[in-house]
């Protein structure tokens, strides 16, 4: 039961409308992520899955409206995590539960995470219970540096929760990518440029034979969206000099839209990133020289990037991408503690990620016309002691129950040894 009211049939049985539901979220501090800024003691009105009104003086008196009282808490857009493997990994160390990396496949760009995504993964429920309503699903690299195509999903856990597939392409140009490609960064870049050429001359180059210079026919077809600028190319890298190479690449191929993920040293080249209008997916928590590519990594980085005007979306790389994407607000709080503006940081886990994937007009803000992904919090969402009290996705009130809360409730009090497994 992902939803309180799972279907129209059930809803009718319970005499409560699930579809075409009207909800008014009242009595809260509203973070709009629009020019309206923060609205104190406001109301968000939802109808038919969309936000219809946001403000102080909003009429919502209606017999059928469900009122959610925020009790003076915070009302925000649902969090949008730009960088997860939710639904691809259930248990990290168990290969049989992972579909993120096709290690032994010869395919590259054609790999599509939608084929492996499982909306029933328990960590999706946990992410939802912590306020994440939308997320990007990323592949990992397998046999080649081009990992394949990512997708966008909501966290309802419904079978139709994957709402956009083949939305971006991922390529690993980090130290590990260099190793995968043949032992040096030179090999990784040669492979990528060659694969881009294969795609640019698709299908002509493949008339006579199946193989391209770097990738084969089916993979080249998948790369076409990248070279036409229809899907962004996400480049995983950390070192400042690598990021400059990526900017040079983007200049060579003006049609290709790139996003830098990882970007530990991005703040060293913040001006260049801003000038090139290249966004980054960045973890404010990472501050150690964990490799020779992250020597300058610093908790000051997020603030520097924002100040320079770089489009920044935050990630949870320093925790993980499949069990703890739900820690996204904690990571954002670290940015604020180290100088980032609260509004910039919050935008980096809501509207900016939506914009990166071309859906910033539907998700990430509270304004009339936006999809009704709304979270009610018992305090400042970036405070580690705060938590959601209500989560709404597509205008539907979500369950906050997870496998973890079931375990918690089972062991909250220890009873008779012989019966514990029957209770709850």
């Amino acid at each position, binding site marked *: 039961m992902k939803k309180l009211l799972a279907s129209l049939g059930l809803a009718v049985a319970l005499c409560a409308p699930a579809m075409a539901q009207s909800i008014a979220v009242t009595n809260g501090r509203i973070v709009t992520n629009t020019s309206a800024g923060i609205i104190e003691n406001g109301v968000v009105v939802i109808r038919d899955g969309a936000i219809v009104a946001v403000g102080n003086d909003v009429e919502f008196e209606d017999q059928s409206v469900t009122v959610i009282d925020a009790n003076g808490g915070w009302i925000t857009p649902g969090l949008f995590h730009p960088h997860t493997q939710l639904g691809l990994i*259930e*248990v*990290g*160390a*168990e290969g049989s539960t992972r579909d993120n990396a096709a290690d032994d496949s010869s395919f590259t760009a054609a790999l599509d995470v939608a084929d492996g995504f499982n909306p029933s993964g328990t*960590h999706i429920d946990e992410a939802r219970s912590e306020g994440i309503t939308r997320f990007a699903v990323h592949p990992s690299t397998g046999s080649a540096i081009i990992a394949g195509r990512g997708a966008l999903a909501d966290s309802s856990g419904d079978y139709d929760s994957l709402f956009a597939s083949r939305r971006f392409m991922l390529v690993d140009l980090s130290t590990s990518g260099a190793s995968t490609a043949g032992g040096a960064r030179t090999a990784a870049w040669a492979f990528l440029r060659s694969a881009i050429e294969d795609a640019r001359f698709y299908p002509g180059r493949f008339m006579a034979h199946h193989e391209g210079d770097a990738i084969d026919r089916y993979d080249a077809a998948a790369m076409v969206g990248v070279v036409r600028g229809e899907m962004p190319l996400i480049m995983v890298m950390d070192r*400042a000099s690598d990021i400059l190479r990526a900017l040079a690449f983007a200049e060579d191929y003006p049609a290709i839209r790139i996003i830098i993920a990882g970007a530990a*040293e991005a703040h*060293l080249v913040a001006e260049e990133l801003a000038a090139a209008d290249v966004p980054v997916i960045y973890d404010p*928590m*990472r*501050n*150690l*020289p*964990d*490799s*020779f590519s*992250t*020597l*300058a*990594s*610093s*908790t*000051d980085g997020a603030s520097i990037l924002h100040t320079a005007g770089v489009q920044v979306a935050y990630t949870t790389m*320093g*925790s*993980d991408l*499949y*069990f*703890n994407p739900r*820690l996204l607000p*904690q990571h954002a*709080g*670290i940015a*604020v*503690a*180290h100088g980032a503006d609260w509004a910039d940081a919050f935008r980096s886990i809501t509207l900016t990620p939506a914009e990166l994937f071309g859906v910033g007009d539907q998700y990430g803000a509270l304004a009339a016309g936006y999809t009704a992904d709304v979270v009610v919090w018992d305090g400042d969402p*970036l*405070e*580690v*002691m*705060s*938590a959601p009290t209500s989560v709404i996705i597509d205008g539907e009130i979500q369950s906050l129950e997870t496998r*973890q*809360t079931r*375990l*918690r409730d089972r*062991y*909250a009090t*220890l009873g008779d040894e012989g019966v514990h497994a029957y209770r709850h």
Partner: protein
Amino acid sequence: MFTDLKALGVGLSAFAVLGLAGCAQDGGEADNSSGSDGGDVEVVRHDTNPFPSTYTPAPSGTTLIRGATVFDGIGGEMANTDILVENGRISAIGQGLEAPEGAEVIDAAGRFVTPGVIDIHSHLGVYPSPSVNAHSDGNEVTAPVTAEVWAEHSVWPHDPGFDTALAAGVTTLHVLPGSANLFGGRGVTLRNVPSRTTQGMKFPDAPYTLKMACGENPKRVYGNRGRAPGSRMGNVAGYREAWARAAEYRQRWQDYWEDAEAGEDVSPPSRDLELDTLMGVLDGEILVQMHCYRADEMAVILDMAEEFGYQVTTFHHAVEAYKIPDLLAEHGTCAAVWADWGGFKMEAYDSIPENLPITHAGGACAMIHSDSDLGIQRLNQEVAKALSDGRRMGLEITDGEAMAWMTSRPAEALGIGDETGSIETGKRADIVIWSGHPFSSYSLADEVFIDGALMYDRSNPERRTIRDFMLGQPGEGDY
């Protein structure tokens, strides 16, 4: 034959070396009351402390921290309170304390003070940054029983992770070998100070610890090589076999000492470095710190500890401690846990964010730990998360109680609770002044004192440590 032995008196420890009268050296916990009165028989006792701490506190003056909200680390929260530090120790706590002449007075009004943060589970130095191949020194992955290796012999004191941990208020940390082996080796408790040597960081007189590991890691590492252990039952057989050997070894030494002290002409047993460590556990001098996730496995280990007559001091990770707080309490065994990590392997699948508060509320000794060079930088936030999740399920736990999870609880579990881990008169002045409530996302450590010396000052770029590795690198000093 014993040319490498130092001559020592009879110590508390059962395996110091006595003999070679007249050239006794400093080293072990030893006095010089010889057990040999025959004059012609040397009683051999091996040195228990061949790599002694050379730590000396940085110079410090008298400091008065004035007007803070003070969490004492043992449950108390005191508003508008002053703390006087003299000679590296806390000399007075109260309201309206007079500043002695020459004292440095720090205005901490509106700010918060806690004891220095203690991480009972760190691999800083043994898995340092950068994590290049040459730095992988935390697991002796060549045999499942390596109780003879000591983490301090792998610690690289120039790990930049020590700097970032200090900036987060960590004043003491326990560095362990990894969990590849059933017996991973000895851990070491360090002061978080810059030093050219690891000995210069060692917490004076802190007891040694032994790292052991349950579950998936040992059986995977060795099972994949076609050798034991390849299963959980193989793990337990491996521990028991080693403990049985240790018990026999200990008996041989005890017999030998008894006979030698009676003047009999007997030869000492052959020295076994692995069994020296296990014998130290059986003697109650080395504290067992055991990596164990599942409740059922912890229950097996507790029975085994009774079988061989030793105490498990702390289960580390203990993701399922919340299922057995009663068992842990009954055995006096602590659980050192994350706030909310899990899912990375099957034995971590039942991780819940309420693990720490449920275990605590169930009467067991519970605390936070990091096991991470990033996590160690926000143990205050990790405690805050666990506390708020506990409260949300209805557990009544005060901020002051929860503060013990990162201070006095780990201090006690490391056997250094008399020295640090709380704001009490006479304790080492290991103190953090926070910019705001330590359970807020936005609070940072403003000033960090170790033994009364200001080791980190957020407002003063010259008062931040920079390990050798970072000199001349991009980002030097930015962390």
